């Protein structure tokens, strides 16, 4: 009988916490584009005699994630030293947590691409400090060939929360979905920007295969996946590779492999064969970390609405489709904007439609976010009220919207600037427009009058021009009637 395989994946996600200062010192965490070694001090340079002092905000952000994941927030925890010798660590140890992580247990549930509910248990989430950055000045920027390396400690000590899942994930697609959900969560909580490309969210995967003949393939760790797409591709590659080896009766080597996005394959990392021997021990510089009950209650009280809570509220309260709700719940700002619009009187579905198609389009085009978007939710609501009241066509409203956004002005001046008036274009105003269009299209007019428009195509053409001239603000029946009278 042919062998069948079951994929087993566990993920470790490192999230950089959005604090202003580092985890154990007051240096800035703003290292991207900063002059090398400009955000450093004796603590993050590992100078003898320097002492770490924990950043309370980082602890709070970690607690928020724990509460959102349904973890047990351990009120009495401590920090350990994880010892290893590598130049990106100034102290030759990383301050991390070992036996008592700040968050223990938890669960993350989501729907997969087919809409099937998936639930992944969380093992733990612990606080630790980031390492520095190594620069390898060889021709192609890779390690091989360089005779020396350069170290920048600006990132050294930036707070990280490492979220570890149980090996509950059964496919590369689910691994990607799980990561998307974690990213959405940390963004919504304001805990991290969750950007994989810049490294504020980094994923390591442990993947193995269970074979139908009872064999278990060894666990392989995959690193260097810098986007959701490369995460899924790397795991798909690894599933195939491991199944092929096991299918041929071979054995999987327990090792760490490096994803090469250009080549589209994973490769073993050399030099890492030596078993890790981190010799964890409690950091004597840091007494126990206590999260007082009052503090914990205070954090719980200011927890924002979680993405999955927002998603179901948008469906039940506003009647949005599941897909729309998901798009909105991607960011708390978008949800707040929609809420603001609806509070100011807009119809929920129309508001959702406009925000999704028009507002998000502008944000995309201008590469900005809602925080810097000039159009207030209430201004959009007053514009939509005119559309709802039949005072403004969708076409005209879009023109006005563009002016409001472009010039940063309120509804009235935007309408004046775009030459749009509320209400139907009718009577003499409509007649003037029709006459202008007819005068500009004598050929078509002649054709209709002399009976050379049996299918009425030219009449439709003229009607279209008139509607366009009124920006859709005329009543179609009135236009048809007017044309019939003019074209006899």
């Amino acid at each position: 009988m042919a062998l069948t395989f079951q994929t087993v994946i566990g993920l470790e996600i490192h999230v950089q916490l959005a604090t202003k200062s580092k985890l154990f010192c007051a240096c800035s965490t703003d290292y991207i584009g900063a002059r090398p070694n400009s955000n450093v001090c004796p603590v993050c340079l590992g100078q003898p005699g320097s002492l770490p002092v924990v950043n309370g905000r980082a602890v709070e952000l970690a607690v928020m994630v724990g509460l959102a994941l349904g973890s047990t927030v351990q009120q009495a925890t401590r920090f350990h030293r994880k010892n290893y010798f590598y130049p990106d660590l100034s102290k030759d140890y990383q301050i991390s947590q070992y036996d008592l992580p700040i968050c223990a247990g938890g669960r993350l549930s989501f729907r997969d691409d087919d809409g099937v509910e998936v639930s992944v248990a969380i093992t733990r989430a612990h606080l630790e400090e980031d390492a520095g950055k190594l620069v390898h000045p060889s021709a192609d920027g890779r390690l091989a060939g360089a005779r020396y390396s350069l170290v920048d400690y600006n990132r050294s000590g930036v707070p990280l929360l490492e979220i570890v899942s149980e090996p509950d994930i059964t496919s590369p697609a689910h691994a990607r979905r799980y990561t998307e959900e974690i990213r959405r969560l940390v963004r919504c909580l304001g805990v991290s920007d969750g950007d994989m490309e810049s490294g504020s969210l980094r994923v390591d995967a442990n993947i193995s295969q269970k074979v139908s003949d009872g064999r278990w393939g060894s666990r392989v760790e995959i690193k260097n996946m810098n986007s959701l797409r490369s995460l899924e591709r790397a795991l798909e590659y690894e599933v195939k590779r491991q199944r092929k080896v096991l299918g041929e009766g071979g054995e999987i080597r327990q090792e760490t492999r490096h994803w090469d996005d250009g080549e589209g394959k994973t490769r073993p990392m050399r030099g890492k064969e030596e078993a890790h021997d981190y010799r964890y021990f409690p950091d004597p510089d840091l007494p126990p970390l206590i999260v007082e009950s009052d503090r914990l209650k205070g954090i719980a009280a200011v927890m924002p609405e979680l993405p999955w809570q927002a998603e179901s509220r948008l469906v039940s309260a506003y009647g949005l489709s599941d897909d729309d709700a998901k798009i909105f719940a991607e960011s708390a700002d978008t949800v707040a904007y929609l809420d603001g619009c609806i509070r100011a009187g807009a119809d929920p579905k129309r508001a959702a439609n406009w925000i999704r198609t028009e507002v998000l389009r502008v944000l995309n085009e201008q590469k900005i976010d809602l925080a810097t978007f000039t159009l207030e939710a209430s201004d959009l609501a007053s514009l939509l009220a005119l559309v709802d009241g039949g005072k403004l066509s969708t076409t005209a409203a879009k023109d006005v919207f563009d002016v409001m956004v472009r010039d940063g002005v309120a509804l009235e001046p935007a309408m004046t600037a775009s030459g749009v008036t509320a209400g139907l274009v009718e009577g003499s105003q409509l007649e003037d427009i029709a006459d202008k269009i007819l005068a500009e299209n004598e050929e078509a007019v002649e054709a209709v009058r002399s009976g050379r428009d049996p299918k009425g195509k030219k009449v439709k053409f003229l009607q279209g021009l008139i509607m366009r001239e009124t920006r859709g603000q005329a009543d179609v029946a009135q236009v048809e009637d007017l044309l019939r009278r003019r074209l006899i």
Partner: protein
Amino acid sequence: MAVGEKEVRHVAQLARLEVDDGEVAALVEHFNTILGHFERLKEVDTSSVADVLDNAVVTPWRDDEVRIWENRDEALAQAPDRDGDYFRVPQILEEA
């Protein structure tokens, strides 16, 4: 618990310290003396002592405020090797 040559060489390797054969035997003895002290400490009855987590000393929380350290140039100047703004270190292990 006692250690032998193998453990000493392993620890030296983890710390990237060069230890010649002559030193190993002496280090084995030092290690075992130190470990012996801890073995003795283990004999103390600590059942009435509160867990370290219940200790009155707790880690203080710092406010999330940035302070710039002014002496980074001095720190760089003291490095054994530098390259402009960077610390320079010997070549790191090769990739496959």
